[in-house]
Each structure stands twice: as structure tokens, then as C-alpha cells.
């Protein structure tokens, strides 16, 4: 008798649990779907409006429904592509060179700092970590870069500032700590030097780490507009995102002028500024969106690496 009631009680409780779970699941599906759409639809909006005519856009406003399909904005953007090509060249070069150097620097440093037989490692760790706690601020850094290192209108201004990040180094250090020290030890006994051990043994064992750090660095370089804004005034050296920023803002200035009711020249009225802006956004972001489906899995794996505590 008593056993059955106990069973009944338990199954009743389980039913309540199941009910909670189902209710939570319904909410979870809805909220995740809503958030997902909120995150994705703006991209779709930019894409769709870049493929319509200016007059249709002015008539209907920004909308998901194309009333007139046209590649007018892209044609216009590429009519005189010199500046776009420069910006693409600069960003691509900076991304390739910068990512390579950045990955090298953080893995190499991280490796040394986790070597148990490298005695000053704590002193060096503190040396690096302290810079994340305290820094001189923007102004002295800016004066150093422009006045003493010649960053003004120089390609190195797009590469050097993002080249080393203490956080990436810490991620590398924690990952490499997971590789048994015995590998290093036995290679040493076989007479290999530390450089050889690092490049021939450790690096091939850390491909997930390299992919992660590489992706982080590549993203930082590709999306960089800040260093261009600080250091570059000539079109030949501008990065892609800064170029986009200029396109958006100079047109914005024009638009504000229209808003305030002042008369503007015929030319600016005929310029399909809205669709052109969206086309430029697509042109500068395109590679990321195209690569995204392939890259994001690595990224998620890499984030897991980075999240394992440091």
C-alpha cells in the first residue's frame, strides 16, 4: 500500500517536472528564434536594399520586399573602383601579414611562459599581465606612434597596433600547458634545441589553437577602422572598414543637409546614396558573410579553448 503511494507521488512529481520542462522549452524555442531573427534580418535588409533602385527605396523606404530589382548601386560603386581596390588590398595584406605575425608571437610567448623549467616565467607573466591592468592611455601612445615611429600614412600602422594581445597569449599559454611536458623533455634529451622543439613538435600539435588565434586575429584585422582613422589620411593606405565609414558619413552629412531643408545641388539629389551605402556595406562585409558558415564552427570550438580557464 505504502509503496504504491510513494510511486504515485514520484510519478506525479516527475509529471510536474516534465510540465516545467515543456513550458521552458516552448519559451526557449520562441526566444531563441526571435533573437536569431533579430540578429540575422538586418543583414538581409542590407542585402536586399542594395539590390533595388533608389527611387523604389525612396518610395517604400527600407524594406524586405524588392519592388524593383537593380544592380545600379553596385555598377556605380565599381565604375571607378580604384579606391575600393586600394582598400581591399590594404585590408587583405594587413590581415594576412598581421594574422601570421600575431599567431607566431602569441604561441611562441605562451609556450615559453608555460615551460616549467623556464624559471623567470612568473616575472615575465607579470610583466605582460600588468599592461592589461594599467596603461598610459591613448595620448602618449598616439604621440609615440606618430612622432617617433612614423605611423602617419604608413602601412605598418595597419599591422603593428593589433599584432600582440596579452589575452591571446594567455589563451595560448593555457592550451599549450595541456601538451605533456614530457614531449619537450624527451626531445631535449635527444639533443633538440628549444626552437626546433617548438616549431617541429609543439606547433604541429596545436593546430586547433592556431586556428582559433588566427581567426580572432584575422577578424580584428579585417574589422579594423580605428587605426586608419588615427593614422591614415591618404586613400592609398586606408583600410576597408574605414573606407566604408567615410562613405557612410560623408553621405550622411549630405542627407542631414537635405533634412534641414537647405537646397542641394542636382548631382547630390541624383546620387543613389541610400542604395549605394548598402552596396558598399555588402562589398566590405561580403567576404566575412561568405566565409562565416565555414568558419563559425572553428570559432565555436576555439571559444571553448579560450574559455577553459586561464
Amino acid at each position: 500500500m505504502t509503496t504504491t503511494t510513494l510511486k504515485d507521488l514520484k510519478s506525479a512529481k516527475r509529471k510536474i517536472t516534465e510540465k516545467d520542462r515543456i513550458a521552458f522549452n516552448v519559451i526557449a524555442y520562441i526566444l531563441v528564434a526571435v533573437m536569431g531573427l533579430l540578429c540575422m534580418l538586418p543583414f538581409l535588409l542590407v542585402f536586399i536594399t542594395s539590390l533595388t533602385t533608389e527611387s523604389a527605396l525612396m518610395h517604400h523606404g527600407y524594406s524586405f520586399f524588392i519592388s524593383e530589382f537593380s544592380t545600379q548601386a553596385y555598377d556605380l560603386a565599381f565604375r571607378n573602383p580604384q579606391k575600393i581596390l586600394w582598400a581591399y588590398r590594404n585590408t587583405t595584406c594587413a590581415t594576412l601579414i598581421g594574422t601570421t605575425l600575431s599567431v607566431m608571437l602569441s604561441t611562441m610567448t605562451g609556450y615559453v611562459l608555460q615551460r616549467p623549467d623556464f624559471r623567470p616565467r612568473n616575472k615575465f607573466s607579470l610583466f605582460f599581465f600588468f599592461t592589461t591592468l594599467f596603461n598610459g592611455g591613448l595620448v602618449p601612445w598616439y604621440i609615440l606612434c606618430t612622432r617617433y615611429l612614423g605611423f602617419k600614412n604608413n602601412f605598418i600602422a595597419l599591422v603593428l597596433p593589433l599584432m600582440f594581445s596579452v589575452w591571446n597569449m594567455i589563451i595560448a599559454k593555457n592550451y599549450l600547458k595541456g601538451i605533456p611536458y614530457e614531449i619537450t623533455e624527451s626531445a631535449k634529451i635527444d639533443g633538440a634545441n628549444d626552437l626546433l622543439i617548438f616549431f617541429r613538435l609543439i606547433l604541429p600539435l596545436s593546430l586547433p589553437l592556431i586556428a582559433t588565434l588566427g581567426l580572432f586575429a584575422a577578424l580584428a584585422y579585417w574589422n579594423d577602422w580605428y587605426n586608419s582613422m588615427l593614422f591614415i589620411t591618404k586613400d592609398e593606405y586606408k583600410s576597408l572598414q574605414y573606407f566604408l565609414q567615410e562613405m557612410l558619413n560623408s553621405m550622411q552629412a549630405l542627407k542631414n543637409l537635405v533634412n534641414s531643408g537647405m537646397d542641394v545641388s542636382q548631382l547630390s539629389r541624383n546620387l543613389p546614396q541610400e542604395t549605394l551605402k548598402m552596396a558598399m556595406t555588402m562589398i566590405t562585409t561580403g567576404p566575412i558573410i561568405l566565409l562565416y558558415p565555414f568558419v563559425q564552427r572553428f570559432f565555436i570550438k576555439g571559444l571553448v579553448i579560450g574559455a577553459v580557464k586561464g
Partner: protein
Amino acid sequence: MMTAFLRFTGKTDGYNAGKERSTYTARAAKESGPVSVHPAVVNNRRLSGRNRFYNNRYLYLMILPAVLYTLLFSYVPMGGLVIAFKKYNYVQGIFGSPWVGLKNFKFLFNSHKLWFLTRNTLLYNLAFIVLGIVIQVSFAIMINEIRAKWFKRVFQSFIFLPYFISWVVVAAMVQAIFGYEYGMLNRVLEWLGLERINLYISADPWPVMLVMLHLWKGTGYGSIVYMASIAGISPELYEAASIDGAGFWKRIRHITLPGLRPTMMIMFLLALGAVFRGDFGLFYQMVGNNALLLPKTDILDLYVYRALASTSDMGMASAAGFYQSILCFITIMTVNGIIRKANPDYALF
């Protein structure tokens, strides 16, 4: 020999002490016989300083680039903080410019600007941090609960997408949606018979706007970090709890959330270390130099940048930057100290 080996490896300098010691004791326990360690490995300890340096020359060579880089780009600018005590002019440079003592700081503190900027920066960042953690953890738990694989994969990658673009592109999207004349939102409002909103002339909506944009961009990244640590919670705990009759909510409250606490603490501490450092990209791209919006959106970073861009007063900009760095440093040291007292496991350092 064996004890020497153990002492050498076991004596860690307080840095991940537990982990290393356990591997080496385990190793030592396995090899119960006399341990023979190659001279190339163990002799390091007995060598004099110079020889030890020579032995590790390649290791030093490998960290040299990062050390030089950090010296040049982080430590040299710290020396450059002297500008804050000078009336900087370009011709005379850092060393030639005349000293003015604390005049720059006095001016900053006497103008009410500084207090206003500090408060804005702090409040925005606190909103970002607190709401960020709440939303990221909620989404991590929700995504984790979802069983339909395709749904999970598709929507998780949607939510992660904004992390991959720059604030410049976000600014373009904001114009497309919130623009006064053609923006989608205003067209919808008009269609509904409501009045349009001109975001670019009124400051009031911006605090909400900026917080939403920050959350929008960061949720994907954050929720993945938390999902990784949910995956690390032992499933046995959940089984045991459900045998003991813990309901669904109880399991989340008493297993999932405590399991996430260490990650939450790290994320919180890392963010808190920069609580007086604003998200410059967000603020600059959305607000920029729009003077109409600044009453509600101006932060320390924008102020420093404006001072730098106008090159009117480098000394003042540097003093503001110095003030910001000191605030950050004091915050992180205090908070970390408190947490270390309360529970050393959660402390950053």
C-alpha cells in the same frame, strides 16, 4: 635524486601549482625505481645564472619579440604620462614642453565635465556588464535545452553573426532601420498612423539604444562561452538530482547556475577591470561628434579622442586618460582583493 627532482618540479611559484604538482607526483609514483634524468634536463638547477641564461637562450630568443613589443607599445607610453603634467606643444615635444604641475588635473576636476563623463562611462558599462551576463547566461541555458539539432545549429549561428562585423557596419544597419526618412521603423510607424522618431536629433532614446546594440552584438559570443562551461558540468549531477526528485527549475537553480559561477565571475571581473573604459567603437560609430546626442552619450573615451583629434590640448587629454587608467587600476585591484579574500578560487590573480 628523486627528491631533488620532485622538489625542483614541485616547487612551483604559486602559479598553477596544483596542476603541475599532481602530474609530476603521479609520474614519480609510476616510476618507482631510481629515476634517471638526463643531465640536459635537470642540471639547469645547479647552473650559475649566466649558464642558466645560456642554456635557455632559445627560450629568451622566443619571448624577445613580445617583450620588446610590450616595452615599446605599453611601457614607453606609461612614461609618456608625464605629458599630463605638462603644457604639451608639438614643436617642443614631450621632453621640451614646459611643466605645469597639476594644472591639467585641476582644470579637469574643476570643470563639471569630468564627473559627468565618469558617471556616464560607469553607468553604461555597468548596464552592459550586468545585462550582458544575465542575457548571455539565459541564452546559453535556453540554447542548451533545445533538442532539435537543425534549429539549434541554425539559430545559434544567427545569434553569433553580429560578433563578426565591425561597428561601422552596425552603424549602416542602424541607419537602414532607424533612419528618419527612409528607415524601416519609421515607415512602419507611419503606416500605423504614429509619429516618426528622429533618433539623430534627440538624445533620450540613446541610452536604451546603445545598451541594446551592445547586447545584440555580444550575446552570441557570450552564450557560447557559457555553453562551453555548461558542457563541463557532470551529467551525473543532474541524474542524481532528478533521482532525488529535484524539479526542472531546481536543477537549473542548484546545478546549472552554480556550475556557471566560476565562468561568470571571470567574465565579470574581466569586464569590471575596464569599467571606466568605454566601448569606443560603439559610441564613436553611433554617436560620433553629433553634439545633439552627447548630453546623454558622452563618455571618457570620446572626450579623450575629441581632445586628441582637435589637438587643442594634449596635456588635458592625457590627464583625462591618466585619470581613467588610475580609476581602472584601483577598481580591478580592489574588486580582485575582495574576491580573493572571499573565495581565492574566483580571483583573477
